[in-house]
Protein backbone atom coordinates (compact mmCIF):
# COMPACT_ATOMS: atom_id res chain seq x y z
CA UNK A 1 0.00 0.00 0.00
CA UNK A 2 1.49 3.36 -0.97
CA UNK A 3 1.97 6.18 1.52
CA UNK A 4 -0.88 8.65 1.73
CA UNK A 5 0.21 11.67 -0.34
CA UNK A 6 -2.25 13.92 1.46
CA UNK A 7 0.23 14.00 4.37
CA UNK A 8 2.75 15.98 2.27
CA UNK A 9 3.13 19.52 3.55
CA UNK A 10 1.27 18.70 6.69
CA UNK A 11 2.83 19.81 9.97
CA UNK A 12 1.87 17.46 12.71
CA UNK A 13 0.85 18.94 16.04
CA UNK A 14 3.70 18.93 18.55
CA UNK A 15 3.80 16.12 21.05
CA UNK A 16 4.29 16.76 24.76
CA UNK A 17 7.50 18.76 25.28
CA UNK A 18 10.60 16.57 25.65
CA UNK A 19 12.43 17.10 28.93
CA UNK A 20 16.17 16.72 28.35
CA UNK A 21 17.39 14.91 31.46
CA UNK A 22 20.96 15.01 32.72
CA UNK A 23 21.10 11.23 33.10
CA UNK A 24 19.68 10.75 29.57
CA UNK A 25 22.44 12.95 28.14
CA UNK A 26 25.03 10.91 30.05
CA UNK A 27 23.41 7.62 28.99
CA UNK A 28 23.32 8.63 25.30
CA UNK A 29 26.91 9.89 25.39
CA UNK A 30 28.04 6.65 27.08
CA UNK A 31 26.18 4.55 24.48
CA UNK A 32 28.22 6.15 21.68
CA UNK A 33 31.43 6.11 23.72
CA UNK A 34 31.67 9.90 23.93
CA UNK A 35 33.83 10.42 26.99
CA UNK A 36 34.37 14.20 26.89
CA UNK A 37 33.69 15.53 30.38
CA UNK A 38 31.28 18.17 29.03
CA UNK A 39 28.78 15.35 28.32
CA UNK A 40 29.02 13.90 31.81
CA UNK A 41 30.31 16.33 34.41
CA UNK A 42 28.31 19.41 35.39
CA UNK A 43 31.34 21.40 36.54
CA UNK A 44 33.23 20.62 33.34
CA UNK A 45 30.22 21.62 31.22
CA UNK A 46 29.85 24.90 33.13
CA UNK A 47 33.57 25.60 32.87
CA UNK A 48 33.17 25.25 29.08
CA UNK A 49 30.40 27.86 29.15
CA UNK A 50 27.31 25.63 29.13
CA UNK A 51 24.35 25.74 31.48
CA UNK A 52 24.42 21.96 32.01
CA UNK A 53 25.85 18.77 30.49
CA UNK A 54 25.93 18.91 26.67
CA UNK A 55 24.13 16.41 24.44
CA UNK A 56 26.11 14.91 21.51
CA UNK A 57 25.30 16.31 18.04
CA UNK A 58 23.07 13.40 16.98
CA UNK A 59 21.01 13.49 20.21
CA UNK A 60 18.09 15.34 18.53
CA UNK A 61 17.22 12.00 16.85
CA UNK A 62 15.95 10.83 20.24
CA UNK A 63 13.48 13.72 20.34
CA UNK A 64 12.47 13.69 16.65
CA UNK A 65 12.26 9.89 16.64
CA UNK A 66 9.86 9.87 19.56
CA UNK A 67 7.80 12.63 17.95
CA UNK A 68 7.65 10.82 14.58
CA UNK A 69 6.59 7.49 16.09
CA UNK A 70 2.96 8.63 16.06
CA UNK A 71 3.06 9.39 12.33
CA UNK A 72 4.75 6.08 11.53
CA UNK A 73 2.12 4.19 13.50
CA UNK A 74 -0.85 6.06 11.99
CA UNK A 75 -2.75 3.47 9.86
CA UNK A 76 -4.01 6.30 7.63
CA UNK A 77 -0.41 7.12 6.67
CA UNK A 78 0.18 3.56 5.49
CA UNK A 79 3.82 3.01 6.44
CA UNK A 80 4.96 -0.62 6.72
CA UNK A 81 7.89 -0.17 9.07
CA UNK A 82 9.29 -3.65 8.39
CA UNK A 83 10.15 -2.44 4.85
CA UNK A 84 11.80 0.80 5.96
CA UNK A 85 15.49 1.52 5.44
CA UNK A 86 17.11 4.68 6.75
CA UNK A 87 18.30 6.58 3.68
CA UNK A 88 19.68 9.93 4.78
CA UNK A 89 19.98 12.01 7.90
CA UNK A 90 21.01 15.60 8.52
CA UNK A 91 21.13 17.91 11.52
CA UNK A 92 21.34 21.67 11.68
CA UNK A 93 22.19 23.04 15.09
CA UNK A 94 21.46 26.56 16.29
CA UNK A 95 22.99 25.81 19.67
CA UNK A 96 23.91 22.65 21.58
CA UNK A 97 21.13 20.92 23.50
CA UNK A 98 21.85 20.78 27.22
CA UNK A 99 20.20 19.03 30.15
CA UNK A 100 17.29 21.05 31.44
CA UNK A 101 16.09 22.05 27.99
CA UNK A 102 12.39 21.55 27.38
CA UNK A 103 12.00 20.90 23.67
CA UNK A 104 8.95 21.11 21.45
CA UNK A 105 9.25 19.16 18.19
CA UNK A 106 7.09 19.95 15.15
CA UNK A 107 7.28 17.37 12.34
CA UNK A 108 6.49 18.10 8.72
CA UNK A 109 6.15 15.59 5.90
CA UNK A 110 8.17 17.36 3.22
CA UNK A 111 8.00 14.95 0.33
CA UNK A 112 6.86 11.51 -0.74
CA UNK A 113 8.25 10.25 -4.04
CA UNK A 114 8.23 6.92 -5.81
CA UNK A 115 11.04 5.49 -7.91
CA UNK A 116 11.90 1.99 -9.08
CA UNK A 117 9.17 0.43 -6.98
CA UNK A 118 10.45 2.09 -3.80
CA UNK A 119 9.01 5.06 -1.97
CA UNK A 120 11.06 7.88 -0.44
CA UNK A 121 9.73 9.77 2.56
CA UNK A 122 11.35 13.05 3.62
CA UNK A 123 10.57 14.57 6.98
CA UNK A 124 11.66 17.71 8.75
CA UNK A 125 11.55 18.13 12.51
CA UNK A 126 11.88 21.61 13.99
CA UNK A 127 13.08 21.59 17.57
CA UNK A 128 12.61 24.67 19.73
CA UNK A 129 12.45 25.34 23.44
CA UNK A 130 9.05 25.83 25.07
CA UNK A 131 10.05 29.52 25.21
CA UNK A 132 10.22 29.51 21.40
CA UNK A 133 14.01 29.54 20.92
CA UNK A 134 14.93 27.47 17.83
CA UNK A 135 17.51 24.82 18.76
CA UNK A 136 17.91 22.37 15.89
CA UNK A 137 16.34 21.08 12.69
CA UNK A 138 16.43 17.38 11.86
CA UNK A 139 15.99 16.15 8.27
CA UNK A 140 15.39 12.46 7.58
CA UNK A 141 14.84 10.45 4.45
CA UNK A 142 13.41 6.95 4.72
CA UNK A 143 13.25 4.42 1.92
CA UNK A 144 10.23 2.12 1.90
CA UNK A 145 11.23 -0.92 -0.12
CA UNK A 146 8.66 -2.17 -2.60
CA UNK A 147 6.99 -5.51 -1.96
CA UNK A 148 8.35 -8.48 -3.89
Amino acid at each position, binding site marked *: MPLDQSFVGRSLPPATPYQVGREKVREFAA*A*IGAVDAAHHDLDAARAAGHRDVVAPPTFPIVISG*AALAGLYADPAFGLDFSRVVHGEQRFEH*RRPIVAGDEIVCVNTVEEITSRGGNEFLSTRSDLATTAGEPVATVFAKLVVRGEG
Partner: protein
Amino acid sequence: MSELPTQTYRVTRADLVRYAGASGDFNPIHWSDRVAAEVGLPGVIAHGMLTMALAGRAVSVWAGRVDAITEFGVRFARPVVVPDDAVGAEISVAGMVKGIVDGGLTRIDLTVTCCGERVLAQARAFVRLPGDTGAGA
Protein backbone atom coordinates in the same frame (compact mmCIF):
# COMPACT_ATOMS: atom_id res chain seq x y z
CA MET B 1 42.99 20.70 2.55
CA SER B 2 44.41 18.62 5.32
CA GLU B 3 43.84 15.10 6.49
CA LEU B 4 42.65 14.38 10.02
CA PRO B 5 43.89 11.39 12.06
CA THR B 6 41.63 8.38 11.39
CA GLN B 7 39.55 7.25 14.37
CA THR B 8 38.48 3.62 14.74
CA TYR B 9 35.60 2.34 16.82
CA ARG B 10 34.62 -1.21 17.67
CA VAL B 11 30.91 -2.04 17.78
CA THR B 12 29.67 -5.26 19.42
CA ARG B 13 26.17 -6.62 19.99
CA ALA B 14 26.34 -5.23 23.52
CA ASP B 15 26.92 -1.77 22.04
CA LEU B 16 23.81 -2.18 19.86
CA VAL B 17 21.71 -3.09 22.88
CA ARG B 18 23.10 -0.13 24.80
CA TYR B 19 22.41 2.24 21.90
CA ALA B 20 18.88 0.84 21.48
CA GLY B 21 18.14 1.64 25.10
CA ALA B 22 19.74 5.07 25.05
CA SER B 23 18.13 6.16 21.78
CA GLY B 24 14.74 4.45 22.06
CA ASP B 25 15.22 2.69 18.70
CA PHE B 26 14.22 -0.89 19.47
CA ASN B 27 13.88 -2.10 15.87
CA PRO B 28 14.63 -5.87 16.19
CA ILE B 29 16.90 -5.87 13.11
CA HIS B 30 19.46 -4.37 15.52
CA TRP B 31 19.33 -7.27 18.00
CA SER B 32 17.46 -10.30 16.61
CA ASP B 33 19.13 -12.65 14.12
CA ARG B 34 15.72 -14.16 13.40
CA VAL B 35 14.12 -10.85 12.40
CA ALA B 36 17.21 -9.72 10.49
CA ALA B 37 17.06 -12.93 8.41
CA GLU B 38 13.31 -12.58 7.88
CA VAL B 39 13.75 -9.18 6.23
CA GLY B 40 16.63 -10.41 4.08
CA LEU B 41 19.59 -8.88 5.90
CA PRO B 42 22.92 -10.75 6.06
CA GLY B 43 22.75 -10.49 9.88
CA VAL B 44 22.00 -8.14 12.74
CA ILE B 45 23.05 -4.65 11.67
CA ALA B 46 24.11 -1.57 13.62
CA HIS B 47 21.71 1.35 13.89
CA GLY B 48 22.62 3.77 11.10
CA MET B 49 22.32 6.47 13.73
CA LEU B 50 24.96 4.73 15.86
CA THR B 51 27.39 4.78 12.94
CA MET B 52 26.55 8.43 12.36
CA ALA B 53 27.02 9.18 16.08
CA LEU B 54 30.49 7.59 15.98
CA ALA B 55 31.37 9.73 12.96
CA GLY B 56 30.14 12.76 14.91
CA ARG B 57 32.30 11.71 17.83
CA ALA B 58 35.34 11.72 15.56
CA VAL B 59 34.50 15.24 14.40
CA SER B 60 34.12 16.45 17.99
CA VAL B 61 37.48 14.88 18.86
CA TRP B 62 39.16 16.56 15.88
CA ALA B 63 37.56 19.91 16.70
CA GLY B 64 38.39 19.54 20.38
CA ARG B 65 34.90 20.65 21.41
CA VAL B 66 31.66 18.76 21.99
CA ASP B 67 29.59 21.62 20.55
CA ALA B 68 31.67 22.34 17.44
CA ILE B 69 29.25 20.80 14.90
CA THR B 70 26.68 23.17 13.46
CA GLU B 71 25.60 20.98 10.55
CA PHE B 72 26.06 17.26 9.96
CA GLY B 73 24.60 15.11 7.20
CA VAL B 74 25.08 11.58 5.84
CA ARG B 75 23.61 9.08 3.42
CA PHE B 76 23.48 5.48 4.63
CA ALA B 77 25.21 3.53 1.87
CA ARG B 78 25.67 0.02 3.30
CA PRO B 79 24.60 -1.71 6.50
CA VAL B 80 27.20 -2.49 9.17
CA VAL B 81 26.78 -6.18 10.02
CA VAL B 82 27.66 -6.90 13.64
CA PRO B 83 28.48 -10.56 14.35
CA ASP B 84 27.51 -12.10 17.69
CA ASP B 85 31.06 -12.49 18.98
CA ALA B 86 33.51 -10.61 21.19
CA VAL B 87 35.10 -8.80 18.27
CA GLY B 88 32.07 -7.21 16.58
CA ALA B 89 32.61 -4.79 13.70
CA GLU B 90 35.24 -2.10 13.33
CA ILE B 91 34.23 1.28 11.93
CA SER B 92 36.90 3.68 10.65
CA VAL B 93 36.30 7.40 10.36
CA ALA B 94 38.71 9.40 8.22
CA GLY B 95 38.33 13.12 7.68
CA MET B 96 39.52 15.78 5.30
CA VAL B 97 39.34 19.48 6.01
CA LYS B 98 37.94 21.05 2.85
CA GLY B 99 38.34 24.67 3.88
CA ILE B 100 36.32 27.52 5.29
CA VAL B 101 32.89 28.36 3.91
CA ASP B 102 30.68 31.43 4.18
CA GLY B 103 29.99 32.30 7.79
CA GLY B 104 33.43 31.13 8.92
CA LEU B 105 32.52 27.48 9.32
CA THR B 106 35.05 24.77 8.50
CA ARG B 107 33.85 22.00 6.21
CA ILE B 108 35.02 18.45 6.96
CA ASP B 109 34.30 15.58 4.56
CA LEU B 110 34.21 12.15 6.17
CA THR B 111 35.04 8.70 4.84
CA VAL B 112 33.39 6.10 7.04
CA THR B 113 34.18 2.47 6.32
CA CYS B 114 33.64 -1.00 7.74
CA CYS B 115 35.53 -4.02 6.35
CA GLY B 116 37.03 -1.78 3.69
CA GLU B 117 33.67 -0.66 2.30
CA ARG B 118 32.05 2.74 2.63
CA VAL B 119 29.06 2.56 4.95
CA LEU B 120 28.24 6.28 4.86
CA ALA B 121 28.26 8.41 1.73
CA GLN B 122 28.17 12.20 1.33
CA ALA B 123 29.14 12.41 5.01
CA ARG B 124 29.92 16.03 5.76
CA ALA B 125 30.15 18.22 8.83
CA PHE B 126 30.43 21.95 9.26
CA VAL B 127 32.16 22.98 12.45
CA ARG B 128 32.90 26.18 14.26
CA LEU B 129 36.45 26.08 15.54
CA PRO B 130 37.92 28.16 18.38
CA GLY B 131 39.09 31.45 16.95
CA ASP B 132 36.30 31.56 14.36
CA THR B 133 34.59 34.90 14.63
CA GLY B 134 31.12 34.00 13.38
CA ALA B 135 28.10 35.04 15.38
CA GLY B 136 26.49 32.70 17.87
CA ALA B 137 27.75 30.66 20.76
